[in-house]
């Protein structure tokens, strides 16, 4: 135990010597939180749209007005001809070019169906489809009014059947902010970066400068060395978790609805697996450069993509969904979103928690054995 403490003390003295690094480790979480919290939004609420109004009547202006007042669109241009519309879309200045045909108001008055055309820059398929959804909604509301007038004219004030309306209620995230989705997951991301990458770097660095050899030649037990090297990163990891949770509440008003204690326990289980992976990376890399690249390309990125962090798992091909079951971050993100947003706890998340714990133990054990073998 004393020997382990001794190593931990040494790691911290080294942190102290390297204030730049220490500062970065503490500032990084906050920067990431700000970035992801403010910038990482998939919400579509400022669609740049252009109108080619060939009708130019009161009715068409009225119609355009509806786009303006919806709050989702900003009308940037009124094009005079088709070429102009094409050019603006090609330059990506606008997302949608909306064409109002010449006889727009005339046909409405004659109760003839009007063809409306909207040309989307489809390159960002997600934004385009959401924008198309907004437009469809505006058009259908507008046409509802027209149809009502039409039926009234025909003396059909009361419809033959009732009308169904869907009352959509959104749980956990009533304003449908992507932020609520992203921010809690950042805790998982940060923990991975600090524990996985920094751990592998710290071990490989000692390899590079030769101090690892000097330690191995002492009677120290591999497990003492491993624990001593890992504990400081666990502590750093926890500091950043607490920092992020606090900032999350202050900056974005996202409180932890569930039990913080349970969350910290789950974090600990998760850290076991990332530390294990970090240790594993250190056993297969000779230089810090290698360690970083393997950690980023080989582990971090696939882990982030396949964890449901930003991209819904449901949309992935079946085989990738199976692969995602092997990724500890997946379980941790489910847990953290559950605890923070839904306020659920161990009773609902015991499966994820158990899997996370077992995975952590297995990965850490495997890596430690491998590490040990490399030492001997």
């Amino acid at each position: 135990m004393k020997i382990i403490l001794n190593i931990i003390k040494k790691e911290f003295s080294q942190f102290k010597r390297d204030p730049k690094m220490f500062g970065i480790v503490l500032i990084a979480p906050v920067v990431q939180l700000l970035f992801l919290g403010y910038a990482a939004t998939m919400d579509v609420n400022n669609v740049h749209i252009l109108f080619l109004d060939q009708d130019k009547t009161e009715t068409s202006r009225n119609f355009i007005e509806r786009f303006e007042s919806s709050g989702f669109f900003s009308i940037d241009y009124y094009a005079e001809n088709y070429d102009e519309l094409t050019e603006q879309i090609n330059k990506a200045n606008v997302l949608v070019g909306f064409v109002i045909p010449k006889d727009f108001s005339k046909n409405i008055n004659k109760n003839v169906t009007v063809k409306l055309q909207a040309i989307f820059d489809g390159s960002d398929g997600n934004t385009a489809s959401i924008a198309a959804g907004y437009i469809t909604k505006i058009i259908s509301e507008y046409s509802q009014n027209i149809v009502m007038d039409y039926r009234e004219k025909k003396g059909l004030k009361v419809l033959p059947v009732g009308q169904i309306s869907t009352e959509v209620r959104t749980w956990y995230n009533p304003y449908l902010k992507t932020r609520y989705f992203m921010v809690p997951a950042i805790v998982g991301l940060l923990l991975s970066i600090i524990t996985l990458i920094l751990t592998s770097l710290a071990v490989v660095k000692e390899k590079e400068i030769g101090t690892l050899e000097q330690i191995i030649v002492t009677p120290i037990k591999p497990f003492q060395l491993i624990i001593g090297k890992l504990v400081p990163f666990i502590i750093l990891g926890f500091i950043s978790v607490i920092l992020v949770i606090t900032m999350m509440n202050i900056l974005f008003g996202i409180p932890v609805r569930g039990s913080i204690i349970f969350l910290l326990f789950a974090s600990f289980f998760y850290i076991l697996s990332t530390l294990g992976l970090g240790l594993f990376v250190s056993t297969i890399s000779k230089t810090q450069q290698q360690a970083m690249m393997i950690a980023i390309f080989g582990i971090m990125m696939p882990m982030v993509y396949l964890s449901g962090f930003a991209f819904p798992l449901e949309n992935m091909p079946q085989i990738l969904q199976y692969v995602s079951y092997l990724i500890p971050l997946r379980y941790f993100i489910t847990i953290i979103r559950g605890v923070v947003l839904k306020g659920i706890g161990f009773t609902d998340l015991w499966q994820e928690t158990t899997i996370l714990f077992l995975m952590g133990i297995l990965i850490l054990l495997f890596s430690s054995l491998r590490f040990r073998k490399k030492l001997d």
Partner: protein
Amino acid sequence: MFSIEVNNLNKTFGKFVAVNNISFKVKAGEIFGFLGANGAGKSTTIKMLCGLLEPTSGDAIVGDYSIKSQSDLVKKNIGYMSQRFSLYNDLTVKENIRFFGGVYGLEGKELNQRMEWILKTANLIGKENLLTTSLPGGIKQRLALGTAVIHKPKIVFLDEPTSGVDPISRRSFWDLINELSAEGITVLVTTHYLEEAEYCGNIILINAGNLIAEGNSKVLKTKYLQNPIYEIQCSNIVDVMELFDKSEIVDETSIFGNSIHIITNNNFVNENQIYAELKKLPNIQINKVEKIVPTLEDVFIHLLEKDKK
């Protein structure tokens, strides 16, 4: 009483044989020199003896323990200092000592005593709180050696401890090694400074993984080099060397500064033969022809040449 006994130690990396069936014994308390060119297998052997590398076959008893089956116990009883400076540059002197003391399980009064001793031997009293990186090379090496024996091991392995250190620091470093030996600690040291080998009790020489000579420096000089050896000081050294390379009475030649050493062979009877050879070159000026006691360098060059053949 031997403190290290090496029996048929082997280490191969893939097809490459780094250490080939080496056996030797080291007496308790002696300074044992381990010589060889770079890449001869010195560091590999030392790493095996410290329990850092597992031998491919063979075994060694270090202290009282087998490096194969009891490497943990071996580690407890040895100190090791590698050719690279391997203390933490970003820790202070004191923190380094405390750390390694702690790793060996020292604490309290004992740790403080050892720390004081190290600080004294490394001339670092009053500089405990300096960052290690700021120390001069010679002091760093003394600190590293002090730290390597912080737990008072019976045996200490020094892997090229003086490479890159200035002559004066090297001298005082050897004084320190002698002190350790006087306290009864067995010191196994590798070096490629041959004058340092003279400070050692027994020496072994390895080349390409093979042990090619062993004994103390006197034995080496007489046993492995029995034919007379002459030093010639003259002009046109290169021509003279070429001349003797072809000569029938000479086995080997080597240049030492502005003189040349020739090792005679069995055809050699007396000095006159040398003068007769030298006369073949009309324009050279001869300053001195003298029979000398061979240096270790002569012996090793001779042995390595022989091994090559």
